[in-house]
């Protein structure tokens, strides 16, 4: 019975069980009735006759039972027999079985791991109520080099008042605050939010509540919402915390609630809202009245239920046009808003690498399946005689085919199960090495949809591949196969199919190897590229001076100076300084417009990143001075404002001329307009402190003595043992001000490593996939060539007998290998060229046809191919004319 007929039979037996039971009743009823009638005709009473018939047959039920046993039992029996047969077959050919299982397990493991990640990052909804209703609103200032700028307070109010398609808009801004009073002082990363922020997201507190509009009007005390981590760490998980008074920045605050453990906002990295915020507070009551140019709000809106995306985007754009017309502040260019669905934006940075990865594992799985298919073809060829023999002995073609299919599926199921296990382990390994930028990855678990998809894919592939050799197995040439001792004739067509499959997988591995090399070279480029500063040997930490005890800029400067001197004097330290930001940190970017000509239109002024550095700070990080001088301690509140600019800004503003001595209007206190005129005293090379691979924007450096930033990062340059300096640093701070919280103590290189982590992570993964693909392809070549050698063993023997040398025989085998490798390389490189533009976005400083990478790919492939055919060549050379001729 063919598989389809059997499947139909299973279906009938199971799905139409009731109908079959009725049929059986009718059939047996007819039997009973007929025999009763016969007895009645012989003169028996109907009742007695029926009793007699039933007694004779031992009752109807047992018969029905037996028939049912036959129907179900046969199905189970045959399937079990096929499975057992397959199992025996696998045990007879352990090499084949191991190779096939390992190949499948590798492919499935890669796919389940990466799909689990992709599922968590791209497909799983954000943990908010109806997350597809949420959007980000950014100010589009692309012209000023700031495509996604935050909004100002008045703009948030405009959106709230003028839009018609939204339930509301909320905003967040990340900053820090000191928690004091009941324990050691501690600096927390806090989010300042609008009172409706959490209700708009649909996020609930685990204990107490989130903010309400009433919290804005409480006199005398502010409200604070704690994270689970702070609640447990600082308050020991005390359930009575709600309603308790704590001190934030020296002012009383009432705890209104605690967020659930694992609550994460998961905002895009460029929003500067870190995932690990430790507490939330409200903006001060009049924040929407601030200057229009003071932009810091990350705005989230919730669309009304029936509103479409386009409608909502148009609504926000209309508000932008209205306020552009209403306020002269926006000048000629006006204000454009960009509205982006939250679920798209949250994963902005990792979407592309993940797509590359998913494509990579997809290819890998394909290679794995092709490889197993190729192994199956070889096995089918080896068993051609068995198959032919069994066909001759009366086994139906359908029966052989079914057995083959069962074998293939059993193989697929075993390989798949192994692969899922391996993938589970792989995912856990991956999570341990996950860069911080992929925080959401920690939500990744191996779940049913992922496992179902990868197993389903493998099994359907296996079923398809099973058809290829099976359709060839008991062929018309069956008689020839039986007659021909070496299965020679039957092997030809199969050989061609195997070679084609091998060329295909070679081509796929070429693509993967090239991809891995390109990504690795990119990482190398990024790592070698000069960021414009030197982070080695530097310890960093942050300190926030409470405004209550350091109320003036003078007091601040005095303390800062004292601290710098004490730190620099530590044994082992060579210098100490402060910066407003560490490179690539989470602190919201500080920046604003600059103009060089008095009276220029401020609304179209170019934007620069601002940084405040203490005297000696730029030297400490070995920034290179191109022109002019560094800041000195004499540049302070009593002297005129000075700035240092980067080369980019200098060349853009004063092309071909010296920048030193020129005047620039900037906005260090974020008032919204560049009104502070400062003299340029120096020009430095551009410092890549926001992206390790790209120059982001022009840069203006202030001296920390004139533009106070609190909290600041303090840097201590040490010789060899930077980490060993940490206890001494803590002691120093305790001596200077025991109530001062010090936090974020870490080597400066940690920031740099984190910034590069995502790229390295991607490259390492790509390299792993490429290695796996290469291994599979090599197994493929080896299989094909080894098989071909077995097939031609007699030919080699004859050639040897006729005087062919080792070199000639080796040439024959290597030639076969070379043809396949060349074909695979050509196809693969062509394919890579076709997909190159897609990969370009992931590359920095190199082109997709980067000559060293292409050359590397060719070398790697050729070496792998040579290694793969080494063993077959040895076998060919061992062909003994005597043995072969005796067989003939």
């Amino acid at each position, binding site marked *: 019975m063919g598989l389809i007929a059997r499947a139909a039979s299973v279906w009938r037996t199971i799905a139409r069980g009731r109908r079959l039971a009725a049929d059986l009743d*009718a059939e047996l009823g007819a039997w009973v009735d007929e025999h009763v009638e016969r007895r009645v005709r012989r003169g028996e009473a109907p009742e007695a006759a029926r009793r007699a018939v039933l007694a004779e047959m031992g009752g109807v039920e047992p018969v029905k039972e037996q028939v049912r046993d*036959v129907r179900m039992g046969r199905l189970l029996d045959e399937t079990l027999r096929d499975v057992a047969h397959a199992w025996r077959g696998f045990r007879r050919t352990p090499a084949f079985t191991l190779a096939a299982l390992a190949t499948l397990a590798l492919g499935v493991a890669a796919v389940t791991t990466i799909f689990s990640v992709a599922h968590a990052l791209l497909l799983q909804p954000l943990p908010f109520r109806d997350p597809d209703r949420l959007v980000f609103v950014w100010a589009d200032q692309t012209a000023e080099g700031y495509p996604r700028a935050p909004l100002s307070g008045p703009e948030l109010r405009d959106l709230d008042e003028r839009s018609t398609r939204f339930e509301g808009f909320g905003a967040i801004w990340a900053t820090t605050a000191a928690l004091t009073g009941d324990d050691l002082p501690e600096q927390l990363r806090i989010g300042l939010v609008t009172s409706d922020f959490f209700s708009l997201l649909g996020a609930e507190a685990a204990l107490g509540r989130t903010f309400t509009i009433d919290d804005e009007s409480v006199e005398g005390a502010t409200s604070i919402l704690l994270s689970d981590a702070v609640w447990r760490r600082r308050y020991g998980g005390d359930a009575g915390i709600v309603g308790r008074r704590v001190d934030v920045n020296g002012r009383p605050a009432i705890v209104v609630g605690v967020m659930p453990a694992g609550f994460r906002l998961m905002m895009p990295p460029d929003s500067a809202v870190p995932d690990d915020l430790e507490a939330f507070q409200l903006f001060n009551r009049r924040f929407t009245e601030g200057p229009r140019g003071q932009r810091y709000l990350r705005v989230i809106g919730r669309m009304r239920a029936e509103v479409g995306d386009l409608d909502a985007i148009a609504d926000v754009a209309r508000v932008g046009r209205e306020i552009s017309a209403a306020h002269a502040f926006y000048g000629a260019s006006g204000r454009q808003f960009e509205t982006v669905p939250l679920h798209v934006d949250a994963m902005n940075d990792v979407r592309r690498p993940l797509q590359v990865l998913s494509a990579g594992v997809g290819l890998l799985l394909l290679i794995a399946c092709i490889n197993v298919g190729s192994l199956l073809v070889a096995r089918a060829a080896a068993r051609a005689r068995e198959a032919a023999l069994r066909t001759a002995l009366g086994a139906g073609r359908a029966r052989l085919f079914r057995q083959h299919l069962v074998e293939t599926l059993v193989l697929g199921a075993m390989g798949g199960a192994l692969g899922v296990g391996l993938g589970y382990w792989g995912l856990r390994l991956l999570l341990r090495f996950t860069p911080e930028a992929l925080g959401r990855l920690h939500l990744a678990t191996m779940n049913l949809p992922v496992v179902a998809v990868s197993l389903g894919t493998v099994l359907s592939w296996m079923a398809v591949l099973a058809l290829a050799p099976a359709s060839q197995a008991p062929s018309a040439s069956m008689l020839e196969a039986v007659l021909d001792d070496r299965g020679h004739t039957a092997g030809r067509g199969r050989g061609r199919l195997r070679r084609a499959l091998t060329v295909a997988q070679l081509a796929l591995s070429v693509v993967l190897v090239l991809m891995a090399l390109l990504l690795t070279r990119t990482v190398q480029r990024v790592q070698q590229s000069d960021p414009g500063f030197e982070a080695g040997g530097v310890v960093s930490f942050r300190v926030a001076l409470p405004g209550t005890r350091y109320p003036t800029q003078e007091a601040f400067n005095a303390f800062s100076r004292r601290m710098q001197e004490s730190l620099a004097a530590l044994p082992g330290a060579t210098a100490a300084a402060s910066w407003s930001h560490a490179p690539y940190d989470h602190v919201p970017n500080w920046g604003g417009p600059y103009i060089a000509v008095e009276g220029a239109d401020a609304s179209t002024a170019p934007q620069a990143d601002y940084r405040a550095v203490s005297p000696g700070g730029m030297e400490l990080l070995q920034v290179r001075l191109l022109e002019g001088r560094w800041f000195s301690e004499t540049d302070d509140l009593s002297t005129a404002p000075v700035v240092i600019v980067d080369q980019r800004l200098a060349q853009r503003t004063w092309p071909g001329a010296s920048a030193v001595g020129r005047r620039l209007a900037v906005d260090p206190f974020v008032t919204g307009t560049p009104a502070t005129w400062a003299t340029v005293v120096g020009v430095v090379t551009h410092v890549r402190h926001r992206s390790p691979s790209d120059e982001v924007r022009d840069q203006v450096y202030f001296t920390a003595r004139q533009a106070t930033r609190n909290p600041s990062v303090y840097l201590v340059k040490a010789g060899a043992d930077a980490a060993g300096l940490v206890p001494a640093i803590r002691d120093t701070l305790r001596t200077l001000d025991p109530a001062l919280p010090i936090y974020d103590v870490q080597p400066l290189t940690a920031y740099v490593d984190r910034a590069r982590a995502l790229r390295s992570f991607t490259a390492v993964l790509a390299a792993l996939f490429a290695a796996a693909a290469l291994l599979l392809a090599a197994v493929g070549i080896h299989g094909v060539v080894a098989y071909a050698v077995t097939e031609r063993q007699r030919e080699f023997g004859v050639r040897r007998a006729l005087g062919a040398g080792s070199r000639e025989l080796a040439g024959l085998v290597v030639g076969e290998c070379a043809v396949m490798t060349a074909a695979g390389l050509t196809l693969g490189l062509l394919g890579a060229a076709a997909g190159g533009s897609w990969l370009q976005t992931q590359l920095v400083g190199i082109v997709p046809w980067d000559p060293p990478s292409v050359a590397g790919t060719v070398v790697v492939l050729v070496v792998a191919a040579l290694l793969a055919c080494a063993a077959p060549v040895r076998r060919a050379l061992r062909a003994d004319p005597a043995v072969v001729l005796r067989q003939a």
Partner: protein
Amino acid sequence: MARLDLMKGTLALLILRTLELEPRHGVAIADRIQQTTRGTFHVRPGSLFPALHRLEQEGAIAGDWSIVDGRRIKTYRLTSAGRRQLAAGARDWARVVEAMRLVLETE
């Protein structure tokens, strides 16, 4: 060829042979076997129906339903696969008989 298999296969072979000339229903098959073997084989429903269903599932015979005197009757007919199976079975049987004869009639 195992002995048990042979015995199990005997009823199937008898059924196939019985259906070779014309389609029949269960009772008719049992009657026919009893008749032609002159009562040697009395086929009980407990063996007949499982055998019929096994053969049907193997595709050697096919069942058709018809209404006779207001009663649903299942009639079995031989399929081409069944015809082949009968031929092969008959050949095997002949070989077994020949083999048994040789064994039993030799010293």
